[in-house]
């Protein structure tokens, strides 16, 4: 059986880009789930300070689920700090676009759908798979 995904939650502290009710809802669901998880105040701030903790968060062999924002932004926040995420086993759940219920369900679902963009990807048609 595949490993349970490791969970990382970004609280997007210093801007209101993730709706308050979505991040509060997802955090609440994670807290109720009994699952182990990592929560960080603001991945952007960590990337800005090139926080060595990003390497720890990106390391490991298990699949990873990250509740944050757009996969492309998350990929390069880590990548720009020499802490690349493993594209083959990372799924980013976008709290800017999903409801609290949908984002929480996606985070707690044990299957992982890797969705980091690949090299130079451009969505050809609106509504197509966005990576």
């Amino acid at each position, binding site marked *: 059986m595949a490993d349970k995904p490791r969970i990382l939650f970004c609280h997007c502290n210093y801007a209101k880009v993730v709706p308050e009710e979505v991040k509060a809802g997802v955090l609440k669901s994670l807290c*109720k789930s009994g699952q*182990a*998880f990592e929560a*960080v105040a603001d991945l952007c701030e960590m990337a800005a300070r090139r926080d060595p903790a990003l390497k720890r968060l990106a390391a490991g062999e298990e699949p990873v689920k990250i509740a944050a924002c*757009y996969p*492309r932004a998350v990929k390069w926040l880590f990548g720009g700090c020499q802490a690349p995420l493993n594209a083959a086993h990372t799924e980013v759940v976008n709290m800017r676009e999903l409801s609290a219920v949908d984002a929480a369900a996606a985070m707690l679902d044990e299957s992982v759908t890797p969705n980091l*963009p690949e090299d130079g990807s451009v969505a050809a048609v609106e509504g197509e798979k966005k990576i």
Partner: protein
Amino acid sequence: MAIADETTLRVVLYEGEGAATLDAAERVSTLTTLLEKGYAVTCAGEGAVAPADDSALLVLGRFENGQAPEAEDANGKVAIRFRDIDGLDSEGITALVETERESSNAAQHGEWKPWFPVIDYDRCTNCMQCLSFCLFDVYGTDDDQGIQVQNNDNCKTNCPACSRVCPEAAIMFPKYKSGPINGDVVSDGELNREKMKIDISALLGGDVYQMLRDRSQRSRSRFSKERSSDKALGERTKCLTKLAAEADIDIPIEVLQSLPGADEIAQKAAAANARAQAVLDARQSG
């Protein structure tokens, strides 16, 4: 103080053997308070968490008999501190953590809104336009002459200007309101759209800073006849807001107003251009 290379204090909320379990509501409020103060928190539970590194670890729990255990990393590399939080509300817990943060030299948070360009290297062609555009030395190059964001705390909060000069839509500001600048997918349409590509030179008949410089010189000569400095300031604000709207460049007024004087802009623009040119020349001859 430089913001780079500071680490965040890792707090572990421990509810395993030898400690009481928090109820979900307490867990949520404790976590929310700690996150709002900028800490990284590991909630122990079922399943894996990120591996440990060499940075300090603060383990919080409601330990049996209020007695926090003593422990140390077998390799002696990681400083682990246990603290009992029994009887503390979330404010009390935060105060405790803050004291520990101060004594562990971990990063202090919340002093700066993290606003800086993030480069999508899948898209970037190293054309150096961003390097020559930015007047605030945010960009630089690495040892291989590749573009790099170096002084991210120099970036002007809420200003996405350089993302609009990048011909590849490779510059993101994750906290920006809309895509693709916020990291949303770049569609073919957006890539080709003038608004996104914003050939600022064509749009402004020079460059954006030249335009601002001209405007500000014109304004200055007009304002010199004004008696009221308040009125002059109001006019300047109006003028700059109009400019920003006309150009559709979405540069906040505070940023426009904080631009250096005309001479300094000219000097900085020339220096930035020269840096970019030097990199391009070196690459060509290399």
